[in-house]
């Protein structure tokens, strides 16, 4: 087979411009978060002043803590439920209500957040639930379990099913075959799903605004209300911290998926 470089100058230019477009704004934000000047646009030298300001901002810290708790709890529940849903969809063959089930799982992926948020709030009001940590957690779980389900389902779909079958032919019952054979193979996808759910929850403004109660604002809600009033250097610092946290999460997730692909190659070439 002959190997020709099919990469034209146009290809390289569009790639470079595209990636620059995606990354420059974030890079600028991070750099300006270390700006000593109060004026966001004037460079006054390097400084950690705005980080200091953030750590002394009681309300912001509380909001950040609330966001972290919601993200960890909702991502954990969503990973459990989403994995179960993925297993049912990819291994359950046909069952009653399957179309409705998959429909309910795929719709939230693109459903405008204002609709999801409003509908959940009306439910919570009708149930007379006290709005706060748990209502936001339930709302985020509902959204993010769908993402987990898709990530895990696509992994399950690419697995070689004869491995499970072999385990059962060798005398495992289905549950044991799943735990001993399938689960270790999809574990990296489950980890990646948790990370995705975590960052989505940490990021969400609209659904949290609808479903939270007075006095329990999440970090995005607080950032949003500050941003509406204009650019503040402290916000740059907070955003940089969030980006750093997410970067750590991405590194872990990509290590997990690297593990996934090196394990998976023996089972199923993608």
């Amino acid at each position, binding site marked *: 087979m002959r190997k020709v470089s099919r990469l034209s100058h146009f290809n390289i230019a569009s790639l470079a411009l595209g990636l620059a477009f995606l990354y420059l704004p974030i890079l600028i934000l991070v750099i300006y978060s270390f700006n000593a000047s109060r004026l966001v646009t004037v460079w006054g030298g390097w400084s950690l002043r705005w980080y200091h300001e953030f750590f002394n901002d009681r309300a912001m810290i509380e909001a950040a803590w609330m966001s972290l708790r919601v993200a960890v709890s909702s991502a954990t529940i969503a990973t459990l439920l989403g994995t179960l849903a993925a297993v049912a969809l990819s291994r359950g063959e046909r069952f009653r209500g399957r179309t409705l089930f998959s429909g309910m799982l*795929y*719709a939230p992926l693109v*459903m405008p957040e204002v609709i999801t948020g409003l509908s959940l709030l009306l439910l919570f009001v009708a149930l007379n639930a006290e709005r706060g940590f748990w209502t936001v957690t339930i709302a985020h779980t509902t959204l993010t379990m769908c993402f987990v389900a898709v990530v895990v389902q696509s992994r399950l779909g690419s697995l070689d099913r004869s491995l499970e079958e072999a385990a059962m032919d060798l005398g495992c019952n289905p549950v044991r075959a799943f735990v001993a054979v399938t689960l270790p193979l999809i574990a990296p996808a489950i980890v990646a799903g948790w990370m995705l759910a975590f960052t989505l929850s940490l990021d969400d403004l609209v659904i949290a605004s609808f479903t939270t109660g007075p006095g329990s604002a999440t970090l995005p809600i607080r950032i949003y209300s500050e941003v509406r009033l204009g650019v503040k250097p402290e916000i740059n610092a907070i955003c940089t911290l969030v980006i750093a946290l997410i970067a750590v999460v991405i590194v872990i997730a990509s290590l997990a998926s690297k593990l996934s692909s090196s394990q998976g190659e023996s089972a199923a070439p993608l």
Partner: protein
Amino acid sequence: MSSRRIFARPARFAAIVPYVWMVLFFLVPFGFVLKISLSQTAIAQPPYEPVFDLMAGWEVLKAAFAALSIDNFKLLASDDIYVFAYVRSLTVAVTATALLLVIGYPIAYGMARLPKRWQAVAMVLVIVPFWTSFLIRIYAWINILQHDGLLNQILLALHLVSQPVVWLSTDSAMYIGIVYSYLPFMILPLYATLAKMEPMLEEAAGDLGAPPWQVFWLVTFPLSLPGVGAGVLLCFIPIVGEFVIPDLLAGSNSLMIGQTLWLEFFTNKDWPVASAAAIVLLVVLLVPLLLYERLQKRQLEQGR
């Protein structure tokens, strides 16, 4: 085959908990939206008249059904603000999706032509911004686009403009924000189909004498249509209901429907009208939503 069937039974049991969860927290809430969209506005907490109470017996139920009103929907259809908001949402979504396709396609095409090893790197680079907060990415653009922001400083330094240009609170700022936020959603499905395409098809067309643009237009583009469809739906549907981007970057003189819904809900406290607006938005999006679901299902369940 038989062990497959044995495996399927417990797998079906796995559906029970997520199924109940989704019915309770996704499907049932729409019932409440529908119910409240049909009720009267009230100045109370919660701010709507309850339409019916299922426990209250048949007579009450009958009376309640008689009291259902479509006033909120009539209001939506007659008030220019809402009609304009829907029209504007659809126009913005169509324009932005077209922009995304034009900008995203060359990037995805470039990715698909990279050597295999670099493709994985490029894919991670495109996915990473998707993981970073939506709000933060919009905020980053406010930094750049504001009156004495970086963009104006550069333009002034290059003497391209003599006075700072007003970027914030304009449609161009909003389109920049939308394209920036949704670009990964357009690139990834496009890249997925382009990468799977057999390169020999393009080579054959070239060998047979087709100029490059014709190769692209007659071979590459038609073959990438499934990816185009997925990317377009993945961007179009959420953009129609978008709230944060137009709220922070566009002017406040013409609102999108997500913003009017938000305003009715949080500022005017008119829950019935907000619910009616949500129902209409859902109806508008029903066809694209169903198309998207079919696509998603086919992709995931046939296995790739």
